[in-house]
Structure formats: C-alpha cells, structure tokens
C-alpha cells in the first residue's frame, strides 16, 4: 500500500549553493542583464541616453511615482479603459450569448467576428476621432472595439462547450430562463468568460494607450509620447516599466481567478 510514491529521491542541493538551481539561474540572468546594460550604457556605443544607466531609470521611476500629475494621467487612462471594458465587455457578452445560444445565428454571423477579431484595430482610430471627437471619447471607443471581439468569441465558444448534462439538470428542475442563466449558464461558463475578459483587458489597454500616443493631451500614452518628443529617455523607460508592471499584474490577477476555477473543477 501507498508504495507508489516511494521512488522519489531526496533532492540534493547541487553545487552546495544556498539557493535552488532555478533561483540561482534567475539571479544570474538578472545580474548578467544588469551588468550588460550598465556596460552598454557606459560604453557610449549607442547614442547618448538611448540606454540610460539603471540608476537614472530608477530615479525616473521614483520621480514619476511621486509626481501627482502622473496620477492624474493614470486616472484618465484607467477611467478610459474601465469604461471601454464595460461597454466592450457587456456588448461582447450579449453578442456572445446570442451566438453561442443559437446555431443559426452563429453560422450566420460568427465568421465576421472571427475574421474581424485579429485585424489591427488602431486603423479605425481616424473614424473614431470623427465620430467621438479628439477627447477621451475616441480612446474609449478604441478600447471598446478592441475588447469586444475576444469577449464575444470566448463567450460564444464557452456557451457551446457547456456540459449538456448541466443543462438537462436545470431543465429537469424546471428552471426558468433567468434561473438557467444565473444558475447554470454563467457559472458553467465562468472560465471562458474570465479568459475573454483577461484577453479583452489586454487589447483594450493597447487600443486605448495607442490612441493616446497618436492624438491626445492626457493619459499615460500621452506621457510616453511626450517623453519621446522631448527625448527624456529615463522618463520613457520609467513609464514603460510602470505600465508593464501594471498590465502584467492585472493580467495575472484575472488569470488567477480563471486558474482557481479550473483547480476547483478538477
């Protein structure tokens, strides 16, 4: 009994290092990158300031984070992305439910979404400026368009993959439509819906920020392009680092939701 796991050998720490090899390698890679970066920065091979020293970037990150105007721009961008996610996400959810619930509708319309989905959305920006003006409206529209497609396609796909048994259980309990949606469909589709929102957030972020870099006077995208136009490279690196940390963090947080769900189901 219970002998199946008996073959695992005690893991010895190789090379007598205090760290696990994976951690040691990670530290080594980070140190190597830092050393290379500083060497490149000090060498003067590239244009001055294209590769600023890490100290300068660190100072810029600190200066940016302690500047109140940064939070005004961050708030503007967050507001635009939030509204975009709301509009794009809800319309995506509605269209996804419609397409996923009816084979006829899906065969009639889903191909259009499927092929429009991966098109470069930023090319619609000139139209959005015409329709919604140069203010936050056009950025929200860009984010909403970007976010709509992954949510709609994921919801439609998720709805089709619901276990038929669950639907039959609901029907045999004589659940009405509202109960079916809240007790059966949505809980069963949680995983694809969350995944759709995760993808949607990623592309809404890109759509909104790219629109801000093209034409705006506020938002993080505006700050990035302003740092470019006055050639403040440490500032640009700082903004990009902050942005990547925020977006990867948001992605991980939403991904955890989906992951948790998966573990519970299995």
């Amino acid at each position, binding site marked *: 009994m219970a002998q199946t796991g008996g073959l695992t050998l005690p893991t010895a720490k190789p090379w007598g290092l205090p760290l696990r090899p994976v951690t040691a390698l990670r530290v080594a890679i980070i140190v190597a990158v830092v050393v290379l970066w500083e060497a490149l920065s000090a060498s003067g091979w590239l244009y001055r300031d294209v590769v600023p020293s890490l100290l300068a970037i660190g100072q810029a990150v600190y200066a940016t984070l302690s500047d109140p105007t940064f939070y005004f721009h961050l708030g503007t961008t967050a507001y635009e992305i939030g509204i975009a996610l709301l509009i794009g996400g809800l319309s995506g959810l509605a269209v996804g439910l419609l397409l996923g619930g009816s*084979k006829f509708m899906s065969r009639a319309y889903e191909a259009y979404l499927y*092929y*429009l989905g991966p098109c470069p959305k*930023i*090319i619609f920006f000139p139209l959005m*400026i015409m329709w919604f003006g140069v203010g936050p409206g056009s950025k929200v529209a860009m984010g909403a368009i970007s976010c709509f497609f992954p949510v709609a396609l994921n919801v439609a796909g998720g709805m089709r993959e619901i276990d038929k048994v669950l639907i039959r259980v609901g029907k045999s309990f004589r659940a009405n439509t509202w109960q079916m949606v809240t007790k059966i469909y949505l809980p069963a589709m949680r995983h694809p819906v969350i995944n759709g929102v995760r993808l949607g957030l990623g592309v809404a972020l890109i759509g909104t*920020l790219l629109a801000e870099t093209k034409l705006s006077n506020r938002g993080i995208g505006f700050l990035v392009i302003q740092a470019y136009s006055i050639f403040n490279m440490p500032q640009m690196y700082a903004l990009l680092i902050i942005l990547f940390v925020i977006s990867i963090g948001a992605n991980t947080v939403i991904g955890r939701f989906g992951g948790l769900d998966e573990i519970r189901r299995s």
Partner: protein
Amino acid sequence: MTATLANNRYLPPALGIGSLIAFVALVELLIRVGLINRFIVPMPSDIIAAFPRVIVEEHVLSRFLLTAAEAFSASILVTVFGVAGGVMLYRYQLLRRATETWVAAIAAAPLVLMYPLYLVIFGRSALTIVMMGFTAGLAPVILKTLEGLSATRRVLINVGRSFNLTPSQQFWKILFPAALPTIFVGLRLGLIFALINIVGVEFLINFGGLGQLINELAERYDLAGTYAAICFVILVSICVFILTERLERWLRPVD
C-alpha cells in the same frame, strides 16, 4: 424546425451577407435623408467609388508589397529566433524552469507601446516597424514550440531510443516532426501579431505601407478614401488569416 434551418447549407451564410448588405443600404439611406452627417460618415456608394481612385492614385500595390515585405522579414526573424528559443528552453530544462513564466509574462505585456523607444533606437524607418513586429510575435512562437516539443508522445521518443538515434537524429526525425503542427500554430499566432503591429505602427508613425495610407488619407480629410483604405486593409488581413488557417489545417495530423 430551427435545427433544420441551422443545418441548411446556404441559409445562415446568406442571412449574414444579406444583413451586411441591408446594413450598408440603411446607412446609405440615412445619409441621403440627412439623419447621418455625410461629412462624418461618407456614403457607402462613395466609398465603393473611391476604391479604384485609392488603388490607382495611392499606389496601393507598392504599399501592399512594402507592408508584405516588412511582415515577411519580421516573420523570418520570429521563426528563426522563436523556434530556436523554444528548442533551447526544451533542451535546457533548468533554463526553462527559470524563464518560462517570464516569457509568458512578456507575451501578455502590451509590447507595442514600446514603439516610441524603438523610434529612438532604430530611427523612423522600416527597421523600427520590422523590429516591432518581431518583438510582438516572438513570445508566442517560443511558447508554442516549447509546448509542441514537450507534448511529443513518449512512445515516439522510445522508438527513437530503441533505434539508437543520435541526439540530432532524435531531434530531426522524431521531436521536430511531432512538434511541427503545434509549432505552426505558434508561427501563425506570431505572424498575426507581427502583422497587426506592423500595420498599427505604420499608421502611428506615418511611415511605410498600408497603415500610412490610412493615416495620410485621414489627414487629408479624404473621408471616402479613408474608409476605402480601411476596408482594403481589413480585406487583406482576412485573406492572410484564411490562408494561414488553411495551411495550419493542412499540417495538422489526422487523429
């Protein structure tokens, strides 16, 4: 009843095309009536009429070829470095355990926002556009290559072992062919990411092929032309997706 309707071969696609045409006709009508401002949305008939003008006067073919060349260069780079990166992570499992989450995080990051940085490093040139496409497409190819190689069936690897294959034979005769369909899924993703970013950056920095065309026409306030150019870019990207999808289906093993 609905099931037979849904299974009808022609009816649903006909409805799709029919509603598209009806929508376009409705827009045309609303503009003619004056409910939609024609200086914001041009008439669909004007857009269709603008197609030949845009194609001839704006040198769409040479622009298309320029964008295609940029996409092609980026995909070559993505293929070489992405597949090599995936193979390296598969070969050195320690490296994989150390960096796979990093690569996944990079794949999720909004990399295209680095374009102002690339403008500084590579200048306002085709190189910036190609490098942006390359950066955007790299991570998915690495991850998919790694996934394909790791998912090679144990039995195939054992067959190779029992034939006493050398490591390089084992790779080229067993692992690589087994992983090829998954690698191609990654390449298709990488190509699509590269293409999106290439057209996007062309538009944003007003340089190069099809993306710049839209920007230029919009800045000239040539509304019908802008809409026509956008339709053209969408058609081109749809053709690319369908083509690569066919290729992917052809490569996928029958199981």
